[in-house]
């Protein structure tokens, strides 16, 4: 499957935001390391760490990867300041909402998670300052990863789309699969394309940068970027007349209520949820209720047994 993340692309879209001396350290990575690069972590006063597939490695001062963290290049406060300046285009004021949510999305759909001093005001986050660590999460677009599940998404008799829930623990490729399903449904071939609304609360599905999707989510897709799921689903029904609503990580009561509204409005839902297995999913009251009500007709369970995106089970769910 074509993993869209060549070394050139990673260098241009991710490494270019790092200070020049750190960029040089990371230029020594091998092509296969770039292809599996998932995270770059900068913690003030701590070693520079990268996650490549299942391995977590420090990057030495000479630019070599090592399992010995103390040998890693020690990240300076100035490095953090420069990265913050770079990812925000020296304009933190233009990213207030993103900072409150704890991350900034950069062109290419990659996300930079932020940690620092959080200032609260009336029980909500007013701002974050004095940043202490940053985590670059490389967005992976794996076109074609949905191919094995596409035939199961549609009812064989009526040809209608099943409401589908993708379930897995974190880092197993739920969002990547969801994105590719969205693209395929929106493109349509071989079935007619459907109008899709993506309610992308954390900018992970479409990776929008200044409102423009950086990852391919298809030609018939509208994106409500940074919008809370429950509000977004209701907005979508009222304003965008979608045939399908796609959203990530449902789990709150308000999400469940919005899902029910979509179903009653005749809109299909494709979503994801965090859980190791069906049993664990059943232990979450809100998801258990949705399943008991027969909202989701198809459940896809993923794991990381043979790398991210391993499809463990495709369950046709019949509540009765």
């Amino acid at each position: 499957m074509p993993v869209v993340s060549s070394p050139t692309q990673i260098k241009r879209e991710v490494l270019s935001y790092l200070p020049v001396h750190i960029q040089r350290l990371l230029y020594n990575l091998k092509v296969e390391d770039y292809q599996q690069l998932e995270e770059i972590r900068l913690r003030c006063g701590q070693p520079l760490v990268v996650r490549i597939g299942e391995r977590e490695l420090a990057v030495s001062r000479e630019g070599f990867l090592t399992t010995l963290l103390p040998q890693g290049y020690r990240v300076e406060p100035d490095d953090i300041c420069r990265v913050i300046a770079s990812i925000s285009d020296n304009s933190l004021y233009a990213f207030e909402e993103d900072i409150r949510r704890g991350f900034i999305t950069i062109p290419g759909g990659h996300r930079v998670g932020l940690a620092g001093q959080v200032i609260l005001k009336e029980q909500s986050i007013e701002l974050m300052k004095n940043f202490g660590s940053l985590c670059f999460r490389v967005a992976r677009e794996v076109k074609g990863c949905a191919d094995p599940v596409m035939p199961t998404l549609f009812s064989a008799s009526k040809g209608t789309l099943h409401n589908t829930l993708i379930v897995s623990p974190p880092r197993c490729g739920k969002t990547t699969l969801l994105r590719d399903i969205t693209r395929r449904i929106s493109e349509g071939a071989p079935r007619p394309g459907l109008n899709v609304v993506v309610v992308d609360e954390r900018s992970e599905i479409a990776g929008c940068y200044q409102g423009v999707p950086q990852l391919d989510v298809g030609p018939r897709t509208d994106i409500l970027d940074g919008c809370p799921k429950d509000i977004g689903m209701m907005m979508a029904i009222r304003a965008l007349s979608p045939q399908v609503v796609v959203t990530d990580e449902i789990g709150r009561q308000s999400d469940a209520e919005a899902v029910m509204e979509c179903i009653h409005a005749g809109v299909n839902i494709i979503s994801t949820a965090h859980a190791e297995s069906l049993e664990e999913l059943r232990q979450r009251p809100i998801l258990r209720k949705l399943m008991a009500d027969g909202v989701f007709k198809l459940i896809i369970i993923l794991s990381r047994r043979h790398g991210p995106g391993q499809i463990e089970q495709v369950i046709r769910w019949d509540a009765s």
Partner: protein
Amino acid sequence: MMLKAIGMVMIIAACGVWGLSGAKGLEKRQEQLGELKAALGFLEKEICFMHTNLSLAMQKTAQFTQFPARLVFAVAARELGQKKGVTAEEAWLKGLQAMRQQAQLQPKDIELLASLAAQLGVSNASEQHKALAALQEELSLQQQKAQRELDSNHKLWSYGGFIMGAAIVLLLI
């Protein structure tokens, strides 16, 4: 005798021009402080209300600002626009450096403007508003002082040069 007369005229003229340029400097400083204050107001609007990215906000401000105050914004916009990891602080200081060679500002004025460097772009809109408003207020005070200096010293500089030239001539005779 003729040479003496020419020499006297030259001394008086040189001192007079020096005095006049001093008077002009006072006028220009007052004008330039006003221009910088207005430009910072424009920048504040772009940052706090339009949430325009800093490099573009600087560029727009430069377009609406007169020389030499324009230099600080134009140079900073160019530095930030290159996206070579330059911070807003570094870009602003470079802009100030470019302007100080062309402007009639005093070191304390430049110091005041440089105090913005560490705060530019690194906080939310409300903090940016506070920093920019405070600097405009400070510049306003500086401008008032410059005006008072202009009122009291303009004539002194304008005529003082010629008087000093004449005094030197008298001493030499």
